[in-house]
């Protein structure tokens, strides 16, 4: 416990509280001097909370020590390239480390914590929906200054954004851990920036969650004005949290891009890079650029609330539809940010478990970039019913349908890879196959939303919710679990329990199908999304009850995963060799990986996915050539 209180995490959180009080106190003092009201419902006034949230983040970063080296550089003091971690065991993960593997695991752990929090929120409001009329989130109850339906709105909105941040951290975790290993690099290009990108996500999560107790907000994760312009002060914390989390994503992707361009092993030219690297490039390009737009759109609403600048207020000559354009310019490509690394994991793992070369390597590599590119041209399909200019509808419909082409390429390649393969199905492969099927379902339910005539009916119904959960489970959740099961031995030198892993899969997958099919079914019948209650006359009480049970079964399966994860760190079966019989360089050395990765550099001498072919190595370690390895 003593170790915890002196850790970077505890120091950062302590300083975040101090920083918040300093910033908020400053504004309160100035307001008092100006003769304005100094306090409000949540003690501080809204401007005070906003500045407090901002200074709290800065204090966290300085207080945790992640910026220490930069401050030295600013004063003209040189620091060594690498610092050895002087923490061992679990302490490594709550202190600042520059090792990309530690940071990758830190990201993954926070992502898992946020998945649990976001999932808990979902269970709460899902339980309320199990029957029509309000059962426990009633108008009489009061919590954090919100009544039941208001709390429902806050939980529903936070479920969305907490999960999104969790996904961003999850993909950052996979990319951070795996990409430098695949490239043969000793670390990321900018280790300090890498640590910074991770640590800035922690205060962001705190800010996001603080919105729950500061009056909440009722806009959904999209935060559309004019509703967001008059929601309680929790709205501002939400905006600030997303803005800060956005910087984590931007700086993390910058690092990935530079690492891929500058730090590849000898002989690893563009067409010999593993697919996951290609996917990381595509996803990073989107996150690097488009994220600024969601930051900007949220900032504009923040300023509108603080200073009365009427950007999105029609009464002041503003344009609420502009917000939606700025918002979706990031938030549509963002879903490709979420899924591209997952699809990369599928392509990476599939050949390992079917013992066949990946079919159409070039096509898969290029389709990731294709999805990223087309993803920039489709944002307005979220706005068919928003009252934007009518002539924009048809071009956006066609550009959206175009996404099916590069995505289809991936599916054909995967199916052709599986074709006549020698398939084995350990847990990671189960999740890969599950991911493919679920993502297919997500893909097939997309065109009805992209087509204007059907979207006018489906917009804002549970059909969209079902479609979205299909794409994200198929594109992120299943591959994320696959990646954890697959690379867990690399990180710990132990395997996760296979029986529990299979139980996790076989409990989660059918429940998930019930959940999303049910969502789409009630959506078609007329269930609106984002509402706390529905008309019993719709006759969907029974369906809702089934959905709630399915949601709890999914939660149970994730609990099994958590148990398996934690238990296997200490008690898992030892697995220090090439567990999956993979060709990938990180598996050619014993697990767990030493601090500075490969002791000997390797050279790329063949194709990455030529499984099942004789005499076809992918990498060769320099100085001591591999002997007779096939």
């Amino acid at each position, binding site marked *: 416990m003593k170790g915890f209180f002196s850790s970077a995490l505890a120091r950062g959180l302590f300083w975040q509280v101090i920083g918040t009080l300093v910033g908020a106190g400053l504004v309160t003092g100035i307001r008092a001097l100006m003769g304005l009201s100094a306090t409000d419902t949540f003690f501080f006034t809204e401007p005070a909370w906003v500045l407090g949230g901002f200074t709290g983040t800065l204090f966290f970063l300085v207080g945790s020590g992640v910026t220490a080296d930069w401050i030295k550089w600013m004063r003209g003091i040189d620091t060594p390239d690498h610092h050895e971690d002087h923490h061992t065991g679990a302490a490594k993960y709550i202190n600042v480390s520059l090792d990309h593997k530690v940071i990758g695991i830190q990201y993954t752990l926070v992502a898992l914590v946020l998945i649990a929090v976001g999932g808990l929120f979902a269970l709460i409001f899902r339980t309320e929906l199990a029957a029509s009329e309000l059962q426990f989130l009633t108008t009489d109850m009061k919590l954090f200054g919100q009544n039941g339906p208001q709390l429902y709105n806050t939980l529903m909105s936070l479920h969305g954004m907490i999960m999104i941040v969790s996904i961003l951290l999850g993909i950052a975790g996979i990319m951070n851990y795996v990409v430098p290993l695949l490239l043969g690099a000793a670390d990321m290009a900018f280790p300090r920036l890498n640590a910074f990108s991770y640590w800035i996500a922690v205060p962001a999560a705190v800010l996001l969650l603080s919105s729950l107790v500061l009056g909440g907000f009722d806009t959904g994760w999209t935060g559309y004005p004019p509703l967001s312009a008059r929601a309680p002060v929790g709205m501002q914390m939400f905006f600030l949290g997303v803005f800060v989390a956005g910087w984590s994503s931007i700086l993390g992707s*910058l690092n990935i891009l530079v690492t891929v361009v500058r*730090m590849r092993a000898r002989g690893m030219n563009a067409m010999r890079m593993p697919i996951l690297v290609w996917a990381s490039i595509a996803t990073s390009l989107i996150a690097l650029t488009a994220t600024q737009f969601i930051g900007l759109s949220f900032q*504009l609403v923040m300023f509108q609330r603080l200073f009365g600048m009427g950007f999105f207020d029609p009464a002041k000559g503003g344009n609420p539809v502009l917000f939606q354009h*700025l918002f979706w310019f990031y938030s549509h490509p963002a879903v490709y940010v979420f899924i591209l690394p997952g699809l990369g994991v599928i392509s990476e793992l599939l050949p390992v478990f079917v013992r066949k070369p990946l079919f159409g390597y070039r096509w898969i590599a290029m389709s990731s970039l294709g999805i990223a590119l087309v993803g920039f041209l489709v944002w307005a399909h979220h706005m068919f019913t928003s009252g934007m200019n009518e002539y924009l509808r048809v071009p956006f419909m066609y550009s959206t349908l175009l996404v099916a082409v590069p995505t289809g390429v991936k599916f054909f390649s995967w199916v052709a890879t599986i074709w006549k393969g020698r398939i084995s199905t350990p847990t990671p492969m189960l999740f890969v196959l599950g991911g493919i099927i679920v993502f297919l379902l997500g893909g097939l339910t997309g065109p009805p939303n992209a087509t204007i005539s059907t979207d006018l009916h489906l917009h804002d119904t549970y059909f969209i919710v079902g479609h979205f959960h299909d794409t994200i489970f198929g594109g992120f959740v299943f591959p994320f679990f696959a990646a954890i099961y697959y690379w867990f031995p690399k990180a710990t030198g132990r395997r996760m329990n296979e029986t529990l892993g299979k139980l996790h899969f076989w409990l989660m997958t059918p429940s998930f199908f019930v959940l999303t099919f049910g969502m789409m079914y009630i959506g078609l019948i007329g269930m609106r999304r984002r509402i706390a209650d529905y008309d019993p006359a719709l006759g969907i009480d029974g369906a809702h009850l089934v959905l709630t049970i399915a949601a709890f079964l999914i939660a149970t399966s994730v609990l099994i995963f958590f148990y398996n994860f934690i238990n296997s760190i200490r008690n898992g079966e030892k697995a220090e060799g090439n567990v999956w019989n993979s060709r990938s360089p990180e598996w050619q050395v014993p697990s767990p990986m030493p601090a500075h990765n490969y002791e000997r550099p390797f050279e790329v001498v063949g194709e990455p996915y030529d499984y099942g072919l004789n005499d076809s190595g992918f990498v060769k370690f320099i100085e001591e050539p591999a002997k007779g390895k096939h």
Partner: protein
Amino acid sequence: MAHTQDKSSALGQGVVIFVYLTILTITEYFVAVSFNAASLLVVMAVIKAALVMYYYMHIYKLNEESRDGEHSYAYKTGTNRLGLWLFLLSDGFVFAGLLVMRANLLGLTRPHLNQMLGLAVTAVLLISSFFMNRGETAMKYGDRKEFMKNTLITFVLGLGFLIGVVFVEWRLAADEGLVASFGNPSVGPLGGVFYMMTGMHAFHVFTGLIFLGVVWNNARKGVYSAEKHWGVEAAAVYWHFVDLVWIFFYPALYLIGTAVQ
């Protein structure tokens, strides 16, 4: 090639580019006051931006191959350079978003502002870029004293720009009724757009000034040499980027469209 020339021709190139930029800025101004050709103004801004990016920000250096090993200073500088440019690309999207907002909300109208002041702060920022270029060139040839002198001039000019915008222009704009327009439907969102755009840019000028102060102080301590001065290059490129943004913001706020009050 630009990077193999001697010191005097490198400085001379800086002067020539500065003259081009000055002529283009003056032309821009007269195009705007004599006939309202928005597209011509955009083209001229793009030409100015290209000149700044190539000759002052040295974008071509991204292509430089380093013959030394991966642990050499030269190779790491190449890595840092790519990182910085990607950061600028990302940051550029913020400003692009603000321009989109301006186009959407104001169209072919603009706030009524003091034209002479606008031209003056633009000139100050442009001249500061010129001195920044001289300073960086001096450091490249190992002339620490010259670098510090030019950086100090850049810093003073940058501070002048910041004061001109935040303490003079913002107040004048408030007198024109732009702050009051936050709540005035007949004027539209002119004030919000003006303060948001200039404010975001001023924030970047402010961070640029901090950056300049840091490298000036480190140069004083003797941290940089002709071979190792990545900090100087980064500060210079960032400073020119701030100027680059203003190349687009100046016509967007002061020149394009007709002024409304």
